[in-house]
């Protein structure tokens, strides 16, 4: 597994080095058929569709954007933003991540309305929200975006799923956060405070095994003092 992953990366680097500097080379590096090495713990779960960023670049959703990274994913559209305000929420999270956004933490905002949310429209939208490096708004072929939505955000499987008054039920108020290198994912309401959203990203980060004897984690040693005389 490790070998395969490394090899893919190496191949791609070589292709990039050899080919044009243009981004499509990333996707061109893939074979024309659908074969790809399963790379990472979520490779079988997360669709690897071609998506287009608000900067007009194409990328394979899983291989190029998600694999191996700590990411925040969410569904949105420019039309529904006033109701759910998820982009607004991420815009508040962005400064708290300082230099890490774009380095090893990435936000991906997937439109559920790719027909209207074109690259151009999303670019304007990104500018309005001050999206910096590492935060990409994704559009593309309708079927690709709908499939991403279906797999990652909506509940419409054969076994029923739910309808809460809308066929377009797509978890628009929720952010998925995860560490794709490890395969660990959680969900957080987009309306949560920026600090709590950032804190969650730290939860899914890899850590070193603890050394030494166990440390006291709680309860807080001033519990009694603060409750004294109140019983």
């Amino acid at each position, binding site marked *: 597994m490790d070998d395969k992953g490394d090899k893919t990366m190496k191949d791609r680097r070589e292709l990039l080095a050899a080919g044009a500097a243009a981004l*499509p080379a990333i996707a061109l590096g893939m074979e024309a058929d659908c074969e790809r090495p399963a790379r990472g*713990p979520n490779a079988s*779960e997360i669709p690897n569709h071609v998506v287009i960023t608000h900067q007009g670049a194409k990328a394979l959703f899983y291989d190029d954007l998600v694999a191996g990274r700590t990411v925040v994913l969410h569904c949105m559209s420019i039309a529904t933003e006033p109701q759910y305000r998820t982009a607004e929420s991420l815009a508040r999270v962005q400064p708290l991540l300082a230099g890490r956004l*774009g380095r090893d933490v990435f936000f991906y905002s997937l439109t559920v309305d790719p027909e209207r949310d074109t690259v151009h429209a999303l670019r304007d939208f990104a500018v309005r929200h001050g999206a910096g490096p590492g935060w990409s708004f994704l559009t593309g072929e309708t079927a690709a975006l709908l499939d991403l939505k279906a797999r990652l955000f909506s509940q419409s499987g054969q076994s029923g799923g739910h309808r809460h008054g809308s066929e377009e039920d797509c978890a628009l108020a929720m952010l998925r956060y995860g560490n794709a290198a*490890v395969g660990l*994912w959680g969900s957080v309401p987009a309306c949560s405070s920026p600090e709590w959203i950032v804190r969650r990203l730290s939860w899914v980060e890899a850590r070193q*095994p603890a050394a030494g004897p166990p440390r006291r984690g709680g309860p807080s040693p001033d519990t009694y003092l603060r409750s004294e005389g109140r019983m």
Partner: protein
Amino acid sequence: MATRRDVLKLGLVAGGAGLLTARQALAQRKELVKFLCPPDDRPRQINDQPPSPEARPWMAELFVPPVMPPVPQLVPPPDPRAHQRYGEFLPRKLYEIREQEFIWQYHPDPPYDKGSYSWGFQAGSFLPSTPGPTYQARYGEPVLVRRTNELPPVGHAKVRFGLPSTTSHLHNAHTASESDGNPVDWIDSGEFWDHHYANFPAGHDPLQKLTTLWYHDHRLDFTAANVYAGLAGFYCLFDEDDTGDENTGWHLPSFPKYDIPLILQDIRFAAVDGGAQVVFDAWNTDGMLGDRMTVNRRITPRFSVEPRKYRFRLLDGGPSRFYELFLRSSRTESRRLQYPRFTAITGDGNFLPEPVETESIFLGVGQRVDVILDFSAYKPGDHVYLHNLLQQLNGAGPTGAYLDFDDPATNLLRFDVVPLTAPDNSRIPDQFRPWPRIDLSAVKRERVWTFDYEGGLWTINNRVMDPNRVDAGIDQGSAEIWTFRNGGRNWSHPIHSHFVEFLFLAINGRPYREDYIQDIGGRDPRGRDLDLEPILGRGTRSPVDSFMGGRRRDVAILLPSDELKVYMRWPDFLGKYVMHCHNVVHEDHAMMIRWDIVEPGKGFDQPRSADAVYTPPPDSPPHVEIRPASPTINDGPSPPPVPPLED
């Protein structure tokens, strides 16, 4: 890694320039056409995934968790300053329990025989297990439990879907906030938390006593994953009536030989590298269903019983399934022998005023019912089978249809009758204890909680869990009337509130009568009439067909469109607690509120920020601040890069 990312970043900019050669444009079109490459043909939800590997029923032996052994001392010793009322309830027993990752044997058949990575608890000389060891606690005997998180940290755990950062809630216990296992009171790998369980009934009222409690992980956002990974176990609370000895008190079957806890959990497995591993779907928000029914984490096991009375503590361990349990035996000469009844003695944590005979037991997630099963009419070689006949296809709840006994999906547990080894001195008393008194003069506030859905999140009063928002400020010692209203017409929610049990006042507008047992027999969640006769093949019905718990509970089953009105009272401690849906997938998608017990006179009606409720120390009540157990992403240097894991 960085190199590739930098390249990608550069590429993004270059791509934006839109300079494409004709060849590239053609290739681009090809790529866009291949957007439907796999995995779009893969199942989208866990409930649609391929079935788990086959496992023959009744081949695995039931696992009976060991009784938790006390330890003589703790090093370092407990810190009395870390607990409310520690001096009043000095621990008389100390325990040490460790959360670990290990290989658990769900079934002897291949590929299960190679074992499956699980999380659970380890104590004393016992091997780690799921469920963990069973506590044998006693009223009047406070205990201190030191729980150490020895799980491998993120990036090292074989159970990838769980967060190895834990908080253990003692479900149903009347404990101080700091010992409750609040969702934000987590410890990371390498840390320990001291839980002080004072083991006294709420308000020192003997009628508030409890018996069957369970402990389970309650980590914010990861409760479903962590409990599904195996972090659960039982805590049995005894007293001078319910002694655990069939020769004394109420003479209920003796613990632990004839008093067996049974946690029901439905798990899905995938064949991986010749073994079978537990499958979790982090993308599911509705509720996960497994297709392998486990009892104490063995798939459809068997258990040898003597022809005598047993007490079984039935628990729906979730994550999302409702159960309606029925019995059938291998003996067909009489209806009573073929379809034995349960004698229910408890509902959730408490004893019923008197035992109730019933055809079936209905359980929502988190609920318990203790039953007495009497095998004395059976002979060695006979079999009695425990089945779940309730059909459920997704997280919404039961469909309203029943499955047939012969459907293998209904199998849970087979009792194999073996010869009697000693006289059965157990009895079923005619009466236990009355419900606690409802004192309406103590009611200070009434609140309505509406459970609904919005934008992928499960809501309570149109809000979602925010650990820093206090949705209800409750005056210590006061009572309140809460109305749980299901805002949805298709979804069921088992609603659980910590700290105290509630008493029903009304169900769907109908006042609760003292002699009333909530009975869904003849009524399915969608309100249609049901007829159990084709299943049970009986002429007449018993007065209670389906037992759903008594008047006093800690989980309220909100069936579609239901409205339940309950009475609760909050004495003894201060601090933060939660109320939430115990379909733990709903809970993790934010169907939870924080409520706080505050000093008398300082309660409030509308949600407030915790910062507004509590001024800085020393005026703040105990343990209300969020504990940042781990540095935030801004703190300190970045962790080292994650080594790729082997698949």
